[in-house]
């Protein structure tokens, strides 16, 4: 077997593929965060909680109503998105006028409520979600055995990210949204219902998180804490990519997943902090983030 730096190439490639799978989740989650921050200016700390809710919605849908994976891919984000709109209308809209810190604290509180409620009802021991029949099995990449489901996660996330980018950057709806961030009163003067637009944006952003949650359910153990552990990394990803930059968050999500995978080969103990080291460097050298505009 060939070696690089004394490490078998197969191991490196294997970790890179797994890193890409993790990166796919980082990308999907940071995408939603970037959309919400870019269009609303809210630092949505509840993002991880909505991701968890997506996974739980899929799990409970299957257990209680027999809703299969493919239906859950649509229904769970829809349900969570509606919940998100409810949260925006009830709580979040009151803090727009205040400093960003208040939005952060509010969403952080929401996350704690969601996590605590789920723990109360379902305990902290994880549950597993079965891999859908059509995506079971493995493929032999030569250097590793890759379960088909993980390959599907990478593909699905690329598709979702591209779709969101297109929606915001290339459609009329996206143009209106961007206009709302530039000058909301003017847009309202043109007869556009801006508060509705903002609520829909938040709903859409958290629906993306829920969709990532459904995709993650068969890969990892579904627990009330699954979002909590991920959201910190995802925030770092968003900061690195540039707050609010959609393209930046996707690219940095995937890249950081790969870097993390590579760190696991070279110096595993550092794999949990490498993202934050990069974040610190980016903040020092390029405070607006790699793809940020300001």
């Amino acid at each position, binding site marked *: 077997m060939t070696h690089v730096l004394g*490490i*078998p190439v*197969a*191991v490196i490639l*294997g*970790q890179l593929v*797994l*890193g890409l799978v993790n990166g796919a989740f980082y990308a999907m989650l940071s995408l939603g965060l970037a959309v919400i921050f870019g269009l609303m200016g809210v630092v949505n700390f509840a993002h991880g909680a909505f991701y968890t809710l997506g996974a739980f919605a899929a799990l409970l849908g299957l257990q209680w109503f027999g809703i299969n994976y493919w239906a859950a891919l649509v229904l769970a984000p829809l349900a969570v998105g509606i919940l998100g709109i409810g949260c925006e209308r009830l709580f979040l809209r009151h803090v727009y006028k205040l400093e960003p810190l208040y939005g952060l604290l509010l969403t952080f509180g929401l996350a704690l409520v969601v996590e605590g409620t789920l*723990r109360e009802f379902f*305990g*902290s*021991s*994880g549950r*597993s979600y079965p891999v859908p029949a059509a995506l079971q099995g*493995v493929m*032999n990449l030569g250097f*590793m*055995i*890759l*379960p088909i489901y993980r390959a599907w996660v990478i593909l699905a996330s690329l598709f979702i990210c591209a779709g969101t980018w297109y929606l915001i950057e290339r459609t009329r709806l996206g143009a209106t949204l961007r206009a709302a961030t530039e000058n909301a009163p003017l847009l309202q003067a043109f007869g556009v219902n801006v508060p509705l637009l903002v609520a829909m944006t938040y709903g859409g952003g958290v629906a993306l998180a829920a969709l990532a949650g459904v995709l993650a359910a068969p*890969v*990892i*153990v579904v*627990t009330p804490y*699954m979002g909590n*552990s991920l959201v910190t990394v995802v925030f770092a990803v968003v900061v690195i990519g540039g707050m609010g930059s959609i393209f930046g968050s996707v690219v940095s999500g995937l890249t950081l997943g790969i870097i993390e*995978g590579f760190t*696991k*080969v070279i110096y*595993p103990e550092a794999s949990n902090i490498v993202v934050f080291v990069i974040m610190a460097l980016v903040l020092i050298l390029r405070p607006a983030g790699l793809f940020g505009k300001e």
Partner: protein
Amino acid sequence: MKIKILAAGLVAALAAAGPRTALAAGNEIVIGDIDDLSGTYADAQGAGGVEAIKMAIADFGGTVLGKKITFLVADHQNKPDVGASKFREWSDQNGLNMLIGGSNTGVTIAMAKVAAAKKVPLFSIGAGGASLTNEDCTAYTVHYVYDTTALANGTASTIVKSGAKTWFYLTADYAFGTQLQNAASKVVEANGGKNLGAVRAPLASADFSSFLLQAQGSGAAVLGLANAGADFSNSLKAANEFGITKTMKPAALLAFISDIHRLGLQTAQGLYLTTGWYWDLNDDTRAFAKRFFDKMKAEPTMDHAGAYSATMTYLKAVKAVGSADSDKVMAELKKTKINDMFAKGGYVRADGVMVHTMYVMQVKSPQESKYPWDYYKIMKQMSGEEAFGPITGACALAPK
């Protein structure tokens, strides 16, 4: 203004704390159970352990020395500070007489310190770390069901003697995992094997795949799983999913029957594991298992049987000495043989180890399994002395 708000908050907090529980006025015997009731280890002992202790108290008649037996339960959430402070609280406020300790070696080490300070006997059931009767030993600790030394002497020794000489470990990154890995490493080396390395995964990791790929990259013949509970079943499941079990032989350094049940025989078949008890050993064990199954809808693990037996053993000792005085009870415990459905001729050594027979099992294939929960065949029966080894001298109570 600020002071007003602060004062209001203080009043509210005090009101929420409520009246203090009255001290037990010596007219009851209080037994506590602090365990992981909701996390990674909840199936090994958890709610089933609570039920087993209740069964023991009921079987004993609900009273001892004419005093009512009261039972307290708390979830330590795998946090040492939570376990230790609950133990201290019960000891100070509820007159706790004995504590059954649940899973998680880290939490139990913290609780053992409280046991020593408060002089309350601690029966450690679900925790595996052998340090509890070595560096961390106390005069009030009884390690009742199994420990990392016995697990390594059973499973690791059997596998390395079968010819699988090179080992790589996937280790739970806390006291228990390291102790289990070290114990297994020693046994592997002593039998002419080689340890190629280890990767440490945090407790309750969501995804073990990248750790497993590292293990595969080592080229070792054996994948030593130095973890437990849901971590064990999740990592073995992932090893199967990624085809790692095709090139490496998995070694379950600690597995409970609840884990095997969750994995299913299709995945778990052929695994070697070491256990202190099995529900289908004889008529006595089957009788207990049947009563337990009626309540919990699952066959008992060794921890469940151990929690029942430990409660009984303690109550018998209290009855024998006619007092719940901790020192008198501990002296009685260390001189009386334990004979029940859990252990035959078991005894508590000076360092606190309850020495009893251990079994090396192999998980049956789906074809070999004839009825529900018919999961194990006995490969080897180890005497208590063989399993737990000699006193190491690391515990000051028991010089070598």
